[in-house]
């Protein structure tokens, strides 16, 4: 039991940190432009595929740096030539634009890499068990992922709170006009933040793609969970996104490891007939409803705490 808890916690924190790499960019972009970028998970996917391709050609380390750079560049171009054009048509048009973009990115990836998963593997020099807890070997690559994403997290906090660039970004969040008056190019700040956010998602893609499955449906699977994270955390709150990422990471990891069901506890008292709706509900395990839990959390949060956990504004 203790073994299960420790391993699940490690995996949960790891998954949570990956979610945060994406959610941080998403929430920064949202608080700046008021656009919930539907295509954010698509940039994560793009990062994974670019990482796969570059690591095939040049190795993992170049992929780790080049793939986010390319994806971030594409993101910046999307902001400059796409979102900015649509902006005048209002928020619904912007949201729909990113929805269409997600559609296009998925199709382009299918067009180039196909619908099946690609063979993106952990680099051989990281493919060994790092340490052993009870009887479970914990892979070195997952340790690397954890350390790397925490390093990025600290770097991001440092950038936003301790540097001049971060100061301008933070000021542009709340007082874009004033920042413009002071002579900064606010549209360019927006473009760079969009590029930065998508690059962060791409980093998550590069490192997660090798550990999990790199397939053209990964954006569609992850995208909705990402929205849950930013809405539960509170739209626009970086700190909230962090807490919600860890919360959902742990929630999903622990759910997968659990085989509890109503039947397990009450099966001795009540046994519904096989093939009825009640039987389905009765025998479903926590592991099976794992994928639903984030959405349940979303609906509950929106009903009882519309601002999200740490949000200041009503969504």
């Amino acid at each position: 039991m203790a073994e299960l808890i420790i391993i699940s916690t490690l995996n949960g924190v790891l998954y949570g940190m990956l979610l945060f790499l994406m959610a941080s960019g998403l929430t920064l972009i949202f608080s700046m432009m008021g656009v919930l970028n539907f295509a954010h998970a698509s940039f994560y996917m793009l990062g994974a595929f670019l990482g796969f391709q570059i690591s095939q050609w040049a190795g993992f380390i170049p992929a780790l740096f080049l793939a986010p750079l390319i994806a971030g560049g594409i993101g910046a171009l999307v902001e400059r030539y796409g979102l900015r054009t649509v902006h005048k048509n209002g928020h619904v048009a912007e949201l729909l634009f990113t929805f269409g973009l997600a559609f296009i990115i998925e199709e382009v990836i299918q067009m180039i890499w196909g619908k099946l998963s690609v063979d993106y593997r952990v680099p051989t020099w990281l493919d060994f068990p790092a340490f052993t807890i009870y009887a479970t070997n914990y892979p070195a690559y997952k340790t690397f992922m954890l350390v790397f994403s925490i390093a990025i997290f600290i770097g991001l906090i440092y950038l936003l709170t301790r540097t001049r660039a971060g100061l301008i970004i933070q000021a542009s969040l709340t007082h874009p006009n004033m920042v413009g008056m002071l002579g900064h190019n606010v549209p360019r700040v927006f473009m760079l933040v969009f590029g930065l956010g998508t690059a962060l998602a791409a980093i998550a893609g590069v490192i997660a793609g090798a550990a999990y499955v790199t397939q053209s449906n990964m954006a569609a699977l992850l995208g909705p969970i990402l929205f849950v994270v930013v809405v539960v955390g509170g739209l626009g709150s970086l700190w909230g996104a962090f807490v919600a990422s860890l919360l959902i990471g742990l929630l999903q990891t622990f759910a997968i490891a659990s085989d509890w069901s109503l039947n397990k506890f009450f099966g001795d008292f009540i046994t519904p007939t096989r093939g009825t709706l009640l039987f389905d509900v009765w025998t479903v395990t926590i592991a099976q409803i794992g994928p639903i839990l984030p959405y349940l959390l979303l609906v509950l949060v929106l009903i009882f705490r519309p601002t999200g956990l740490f949000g200041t504004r009503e969504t």
Partner: protein
Amino acid sequence: MMNLIKSLGIWIAAAILIVILPYVFPSGASITTMCLMGIMIIFALSYNMLLGQSGMLSFGHAVYYGLAAFVTAHTINWAIKSGVPLPLPLIPVAGAVTGLIFGIIFGSVSTKRAGTAFAMISLGLAELVYSSSLILRSFFGGEEGISADRTKLIRFFGYNFGPQIQVYYLIAAWCLLCVILMYAITRTPLGRMCNAVRENPERVEFVGYNPQLVRYIAFSLAGLFAGVAGSLAAINIELAQASFVGAAQSGAVLLAAYIGGVAFFVGPVLGAILVTYLSLTLSDFSEIWVLYFGILFVVIIMFAPYGLSGLLMMHAQFWRGPLGSRLARFGRLFGAYLVAAVPALIMLGGAILFIEMIHHVAQKGAEGANMHFLRRNYITINTHSVLPWIGGIVAMIGGFFAFRLSWPTVANAWHKALLDAQRSGA
């Protein structure tokens, strides 16, 4: 009285059109296509009750469509099994009730909010229902779904709805009924309040209405009509599958409504017809037609936010004055369009060639260098030689710049036509 005749006239014309369409396009494939179009028209219009009429962007409208489809399949099976004399044409009522009930349930959660939050809740609810469909197997039937044999029901005036043409008339009748009802709703005070809530919910509150309640009612009614559409879809293919409640289905209706144009009542109808037609025909030409579809969607969002119906309505202002001058005006305008269309088509052709070649090399490199352009045998392109690549890129980029050069011509012609129309209108 004249107005009544005029407005009735449109619906009578639509009814006549529906009746004679199978005689104009009698082939089996076109009947099937028209069935799908009819279903999509109801679905897209119901979606537009949210997006176009009330300003609610939903990413989960397929929930009501899909759940109604499942209830329909179960209702048919139940009626057959228990011998209840329920004819097929009444079955969509079950779908409508299902859509309405789930609209009331989910609407009570989601319509408290508007804007981005509403969109997110609709997405969350849709994922919730879709994920549940994999768990609640007795209702959703797992991978294979729930099938239902529509012909085993009690006959309706001797029709057993085995042949597709009978199903066509069933769908067409329901489609016309729903379109009339949805149009009528836009004319009621409720429909007007929906528009007001879309434009300015705060003001609506000031004049004493509850915008949440207005959204709630609109949402529930949209669920009802989506339920009819889903029910007809299940009747049409005699099957309800988990994909009916999926994100792709929600995306399809959003695309259809938006491409057609959400600002006008007729927009989603056009969109539904076009999107259904394209999704059935484009796949014959290219394996990656969905990509072109996505690009079309983004182009419309960027450059024609009112969709196809918006583009058509922009031309309505030129249709005034004596008939001769109307035709002359349109002739000059379309002449300018033609000037712009030539480079635009070159650009498009180059881009399609380029994309198809990438697709061929990436996905079918093993099949050899030769690619059948647009899947037809009359143009074969050697993807290993440099020439087609250069040709594609040059056509794409050169076409774009030539296209841009033609914009002033179009703008000029537009301006002249506008001046001309204003003069003859006055």
